[in-house]
């Protein structure tokens, strides 16, 4: 993976409610704290030039694969939805995997082709990595258990 220059993105809203962005690039290696500080300095200068209002900002880091493999025929809309629990009441999250391979699904019973086999070796390895890694739900709660996984299709 090759890292691209990180971006600071300001989101603006006008009097009609329409939104637009201003994007600025920063050197590779810039930390979140450094970019946030630079953003705080630049923001009032930009605001003095515009009649719109800044409503949020993102600091975005991206990488690209210079030689990705060829995809096979399954479409990205044929997804696997993994439901992860955090152990905290009402705090779950869903991780959606595009183009879920047909190998992941149970092959017998009423949910054949719908339910993902949590015991399948690649599935189990993925779930173990999520449960043991630094991954959390959008509110910052640790993911501790995959409680269900199944096919979801959006075309």
């Amino acid at each position, binding site marked *: 993976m090759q890292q691209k220059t990180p971006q600071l993105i300001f989101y603006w809203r006008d009097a009609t409610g329409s939104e637009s962005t201003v994007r600025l690039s920063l050197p590779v290696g810039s930390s979140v704290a450094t970019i946030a500080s630079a953003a705080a300095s*630049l923001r009032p200068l930009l605001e003095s030039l515009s009649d719109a209002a800044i409503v*949020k900002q993102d600091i975005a880091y991206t990488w690209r694969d210079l030689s990705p493999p060829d995809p096979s025929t399954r479409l990205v809309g044929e997804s696997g939805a993994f439901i992860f629990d955090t152990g905290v009441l009402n705090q779950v999250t869903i991780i959606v995997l595009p183009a879920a391979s047909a190998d992941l699904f149970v092959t017998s019973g009423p949910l054949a082709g719908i339910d993902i086999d949590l015991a399948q070796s690649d599935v189990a390895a*993925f779930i173990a990595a999520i449960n043991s890694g630094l991954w959390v739900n959008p509110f910052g709660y640790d993911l501790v258990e995959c409680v269900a996984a199944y096919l979801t299709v959006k075309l």
Partner: protein
Amino acid sequence: MSMSNLPAAVAYFTLVDASGSTSKIEFHVPFATAILDVGGALDVLRPLVAALTDAAIIGQGVTFPYKENAAVAPVAGSRVEEKGVFIWRTANGRTTRFSLPAIKDTLLKTSGAIDRANAAVAAIITSVIAVNALWCGADGSDITSIDKAYQRFNSTTKNQLPKDV
């Protein structure tokens, strides 16, 4: 006005299928996670995700989101389609740009050029090209001077059309 961060940053892989359609698989990490650690965690996860999908992973990223807690009201009549385009020269001789939405009309000359003598305009130019400023082009080359600055009107997108027609 103050920005506060959301509890978690969003890490993702971008995938493409054989038809050329792209999609993402998204995860969350605690906001305070260092970017190096997020990159390392994505490196661990990538082959595991690749083993589950028939799409190809073509990229990855992480976004640290902030929300403005007390956004000011936009000025009546402002429209994001009215842009102030700032084109900058970089150290390697190329250009980079950003387009500021709803540029104030008081900053414009009658020709539509942005008045670089205006104090607020001069301040942003000075800040962006300052020797110790971080801002650069997409290729990482430092921004060194302003090249052009002018008003431009973008087309209204479908999402920007009024809803009460």
